[in-house]
């Protein structure tokens, strides 16, 4: 198969970027999208041109590293799949393909298709955990959890932190990411004690990092490679309102513990 690729090239965080066009052939349908870029990069290195930088690692759809807008879609046309799980048989021979980095102010470009997603780490650092130290945990079976709750927690916990939700959202909101973590911990008794504070601190960090507000457009769910439901955003909103009311009554500072 043959393709014409238009790829965003940007030498560094401060440098100006531009779309560059490359023609490539000898591609087979079995190749993953990233393997197709590997082929291009091998050729570029041989021609003395720097390869296209992109984040990738496990190549089996679980590490959350890969992050590309393909023809305007986060992770490309395949539903419920990361870029590394997208195969070239999903394209037609001769297609033109536009490849860009994640688009969101909170994900600044470092080089070519590589963006800085450390904002997600900072959101988790602001409450996306249960406050327990190692050691001293009670027996695992001392806390029965209804299967339905554990299943719901797992549905949310599947989030791979890739950032497709924010990249796909017209507001560049990462609310699905926040909701997945809040929904995971909040569905289980271990996470309940801190749920009220968690929801506010995580949202405060989300806003501070420069992500936009959620206006229930739903692009995030469509782009999510793990197909995490926007129902978790609804749950997040309920928790947030309850928490805000509680803190207003109690006179707690907004966003504080």
């Amino acid at each position, binding site marked *: 198969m043959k393709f014409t690729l238009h790829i965003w090239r940007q030498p560094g965080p401060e440098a100006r970027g531009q779309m560059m066009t490359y023609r490539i052939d000898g591609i087979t349908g079995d190749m993953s999208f990233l393997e197709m870029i590997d082929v291009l990069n091998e050729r570029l290195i041989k021609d003395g041109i720097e390869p296209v930088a992109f984040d990738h690692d496990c190549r089996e759809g679980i590490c959350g*590293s890969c992050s590309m807008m393909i023809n305007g879609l986060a992770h490309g046309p395949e539903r419920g799949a990361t870029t590394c799980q997208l195969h070239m048989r999903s394209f037609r021979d001769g297609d033109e393909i536009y490849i860009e980095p994640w688009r969101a102010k909170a994900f600044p470009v470092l080089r070519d298709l590589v963006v800085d997603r450390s904002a997600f780490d900072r959101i988790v650092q602001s409450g996306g955990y249960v406050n327990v130290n190692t050691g001293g945990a009670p027996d695992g079976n001392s806390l029965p959890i209804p299967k339905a709750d554990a299943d719901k927690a797992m549905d949310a916990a599947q989030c791979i932190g890739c950032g497709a939700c924010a990249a796909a959202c017209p507001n560049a909101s990462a609310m699905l990411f926040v909701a997945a973590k809040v929904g995971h911990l909040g569905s289980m008794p271990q996470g309940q004690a801190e749920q009220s504070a968690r929801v506010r601190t995580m949202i405060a960090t989300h806003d501070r990092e420069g992500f936009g507000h959620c206006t229930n457009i739903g692009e995030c769910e469509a782009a999510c490679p793990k197909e995490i439901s926007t129902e978790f955003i609804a749950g997040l909103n309920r928790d947030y309102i309850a928490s805000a009311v509680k803190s207003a009554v109690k006179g707690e500072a907004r966003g504080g513990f």
Partner: protein
Amino acid sequence: MISLDSKVPSGSVPEKWTNFKKKQLLINPANKRKYTVIVVGTGLAGASASASLAELGYNVQTFCFHDSPRRAHSIAAQGGINAAKNYRNDGDSVWRLFYDTIKGGDFRAREANVHRLAEVSVNIIDQCVAQGVPFAREYGGLLDTRSFGGAQLQRTFYCRGQTGQQLLLGAYQALARQIAYGNVKMFPRTEMLDLVVVDGRAKGIVVRNLVTGQVSSHAADAVVLATGGYGNVYYLSTNAIGCNVTATYRAYKRGAAFANPCYTQIHPTCIPVSGDHQSKLTLMSESLRNDGRVWVPKNRADINKHPSEIPETDRDYYLERKYPSFGNLAPRDISSRAAKEACDDGRGVGPGGRGVYLDFGTAIGRLGKAKIAERYGNLFDMYQRITGENGYERPMRIYPAIHYTMGGLWVNYELMSNVPGLFVIGEANFSDHGANRLGASALMQGLADGYFVLPYTLTHWLADQKPGTLPTNHTEFLKAEAETTERLKKLLNAKGKKTAAEYHRESGKILWEKVGMARTKASCEEAIAQLRQLQLEFHHNLAVTGTGEGLNTALERANRVWDFLEFGQLLARDALDREESCGGHFREEHQYPDGEAKRDDERYSHVAAWTYNGPDATPTRNVEQLTWDAVKPSVRSYK
């Protein structure tokens, strides 16, 4: 020869860990703050160790080459984690888990370490539950378990098919919490390129910031490597693309002993290679072998036929034929070798003739498609996504692939290498799996080391050391930094014709063919010679673009491949000198007439730990004799 003192505590095997803790030295909380610990890697072992050490009060600096500590390859583990909880009342115990792990490792692991692993396995589950890991539950709300890897018990805890992910996120969140508290300083996108050893002690590391390209040093009272395995030395493996041997290999070059590099695990149920462009192999859970039947055509002439055109009488269900009592559930190493034999015989199917059928036809006939879909639906989907074929209608094609490496840096009972101050945990060390790892044991070991072993043993060691790091302008730091910069410059100045990926592919192929599933004296010798040749060529015909400043993926890759080329020779040398077959290491000269692996306990009941003697010198093979106080080595038979 160096002396390898395992520092195993006194007492009977089940008492050793208790005895260690009784005598363990402590450091008061106010003084812990004065010690700085560097942790490299943020997989299960690294993240759990960083969090636990920071909770104790140490000053922790943690490094990973990913953009976030949540991405390490522990995340890809599917199956589950073993623990001797005996929630099922099915006869499990710490002793039984210990014995199964020792036997699974073909009696090539250190008893004391393995027993400790089994002991702390029960704490891991409790800890993870407290963190909010969403383990599978039964309708009564209690934890569900399943059987795994041929065990006769149901001791494996799991989170759907994403156990590694959920356990890693638990550890990552514990780490995030310590970062928020200011107890851990996290350095993402920072790759360790050298170990700094001063007067024979590990005192810090040299790193490269992968975004700015800056090379710098970090000093510490102790360095912990949690940098994973070296499976990617074979180029194609189920490891993530970034997995590499650089951190452990550099430590080896600075004096740390590398133990049992020839112990590599090959997993039988991976999706076969489809062409030269392929960058990695994908594993499908072993559970598929519960209902799938493995076969190849009896006649070479049939290999290109559609499988439905091959009648039952012309199919060779070779596992059922050779191992009637275990059949399709024969252990990983045995099934893998049988697949290779069938393909070597010219009866392999699919592109390149490197594949065997895994057929669900019988199971679908017996249980119906719906039942099979319920059990394995996600795996069938994954297979279809990658191969474009429908596994319900046409048998899947599978082939073995490198999956895990049991070898690693040598450590004593306290997880410290022979270089004082250098600790090694998780897959990066050699200690617990012997010559073969059992399913669902890797997650257990990573978390055991990080949560429940290192916090004790590191404290014990540090208590005897005066706190205080060296300044990073100390001569040894400057020397190591200069050597790293020089090395990067050498790579950048290479103006040859071949890319690092091409060298990697070529060297990986040599290793896979000659030191892969089956090895001989001649094949190991050939591998060493050919890799040596390739290494020489690499230095004058490599092509690397760009500069050292800024993000340069070509440079990162070339730097890792350089180490793979050298390390591959060490692996082959170890395979050459271990003249027996055990676990994942199969020497064709050493087998029983029926083709089973023949262990040689007289001569090889020991750990081989290699030390570096210089770029052109042969490394030294040091030996730690294994002792058998609790169990008696026996022959593994699966007939």
